[in-house]
């Protein structure tokens, strides 16, 4: 089971160590972690993707809430939140394949941000499903380097109602 957890923390040096340290200390599996400031400069939002069985995931949220710096923990259900990840990829690009690449990029809405004699660098953002589909479409190409930001997410306002589950 995977879960996206949005954690609001007090923004100060050391807070990431406390959050990341929790995962090593308690042997939780963390798939991605992304941190950045919010609309309030004193608050940082950390988006975590974690995996484990239900009891482990419940412990993760409880242990996160226990951290002194954690202001709130929200369990973001996939169906009720918007999730995005930014991906940069440099691809080996023989001249004869340029057209094919441009077609793939255009059909996905990925931007080509750099081109050299042998490579092209693509930028794309989307949810997990779209990123995986793009990676499949690019399977014929050899990837030289790749960087991903990890998932960020916000609850969907349109499905706000009672469906958004606040854990803290």
């Amino acid at each position, binding site marked *: 089971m995977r879960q996206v957890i949005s954690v609001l*923390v*007090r923004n100060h040096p*050391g807070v990431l*160590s406390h959050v990341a340290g929790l995962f090593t200390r308690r042997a939780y599996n963390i798939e991605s972690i992304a941190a950045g400031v919010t609309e309030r400069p004193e608050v940082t939002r950390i988006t975590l993707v974690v995996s484990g069985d239900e009891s482990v995931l419940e*412990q993760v949220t*409880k242990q996160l*809430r226990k951290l002194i*710096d954690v*202001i709130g923990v929200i369990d973001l259900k996939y169906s009720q939140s918007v999730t995005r990840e930014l991906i940069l990829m440099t691809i080996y690009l023989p001249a004869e394949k340029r057209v094919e690449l441009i077609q793939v990029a255009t059909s996905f809405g990925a931007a080509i941000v750099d081109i050299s004699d042998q490579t092209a660098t693509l930028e794309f953002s989307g949810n997990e499903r779209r990123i995986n589909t793009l990676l499949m479409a690019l399977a014929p190409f050899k990837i030289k380097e790749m960087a991903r930001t990890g998932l960020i997410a916000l609850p969907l306002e349109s499905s706000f109602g009672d469906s958004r589950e606040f854990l803290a």
Partner: protein
Amino acid sequence: MSSGMKKGSEIIIDVLQEEGVDVLFGFPGGQVIPLYDALYDCPIRHILTRHEQGAAHAADGYARVTGKVGVCIATSGPGATNLVTGLANAYMDSVPMVAITGQVPTSMIGNDSFQEADIYGISIPITKYNYLVKDIHDLGRVLKEAFYLARTGRPGPVLVDVPRDIQVGQIKYKPITEIYLPSYHPVIKGHPKQIETALKAIREAERPVAYVGGGIISAGATEELQAFIRATNLPITNTLLGKGSFPEDHPLSLGMLGMHGSRYANYSIYNSDLIVALGVRFDDRVAGDVAKFAPRARVIHVDIDPAEIGKRVNVDIPIVGDVKTVLGQLLAKVKPMERKKWLEQINQWKKDHPLTYKKDGGLKPQYILECINTLKKREVIIGTDVGQHQMWAAQFIRTKKPRTFISSGGLGTMGYGFPASIGAQVGCPEKTVILISGDGSFQMNIQELATARCYNIPVKIFIFNNGYLGMVRQWQELFWNKRYSHTHFEFNPDFVKVAEGYEIKGRVVRTTEEVMPAIEAALSVKEPYLIDFRIAPEENVSPMVPPGKGICEILEEC
């Protein structure tokens, strides 16, 4: 100095005094000289231990017997890293402590400077919270928060790392009067609906057992607990850290449960239909195999830490709150209950399977503990180290009052007992502190003999000397085919002579007849005293539930 200006070191002293700190345990060093300079003119008592680990354990022992926040000080680098075991120990057992460490000046941090260690990073997983003070304007607030965090909610150790330039810097300082921690709100009161549900479950249960622990003592809830047990007629078993939460000589008491608990405590838990868990955490030394712990029981769990609820066992009726407050809520609504049949069954188990030992075969450790139980007319605090002697003490010492049995539970720290007993004696000078130690554990902080002598801290040191690391030897005997790999001490010092070197009196006891006179001799002097009890070398702790096993899978003979 211009009016209102204060040095960082003076701000630290100010906050310590505001917090009512009357004693510090510490060891100076290069990066805390400014703080020690401020201490030089300050009325707060400072106990100079002979190792920083001793200072940390002493602060811990002091906190456990007084209920106040224990404070220790160490310098940067090795001084700070020597606190690590003490912090981890206090964290595992939820002991309120503040550790202040010196650090290299802020401009030197990260340069691998002399005696630099990242104690902030190191202490993250072993403290409730920690700080590295980088701006002197934060210093007062940070220290106030440290004390607040240490003693509120689920207590624990807090470390404050103070670089040297922060200690010597000067600012206009106004005392901090308000704590603002927007993300820290321990829940105190139990949910009223859950209180009702719990009472109904207790009323309807046929075979309920109360299982209580250190939370009762740290919440100061012993009176409420006793009133609650009287009203509900619940048989009650306690953890190691719960010793003193309920008088162990009371007819409803089952003593300690778990790996070395009494058979009747473990049988009661296993056969129960309702567990009333109060300030406990279902630790693996209590519930080795959670599926075979109380398979037919519903569980009520009261704890101030929501993360403890459901951590190891499924809980049917969770109540998050301060156990003293929650017991008060329960008491307000409880009606007296009878449970004759269940108590009869338990009394039968008590009769059939008493906690006992074979009297022959040399000087028995259990006999020494029984002798200690007979001491009247004085209030005794028992400190223990870790190992067989600790478990014998837990089994055979009848603890009646809170904060009179101090022991390293969660971390199981050999070397804890002696410095912790020193701290306990400093906190309770009017009481008799007896340390039950082993020849292995005692040698892990033996240097504190100097501290005990120097300040005439009259701890009575009882070494249960069997020449073995006895608990590991017992495991090797039972589970490793008697292959006693490196658990036999081929050399041990003459402990009485060692004590003599520190100008501490002592004697060796080899026979049963010598025990009581030796104890009386130790207690008759107002100074530390050491007794080297040469106990039966291969005596085991019994009963025993093997690790990871169900609470009733007790070894037949061990």
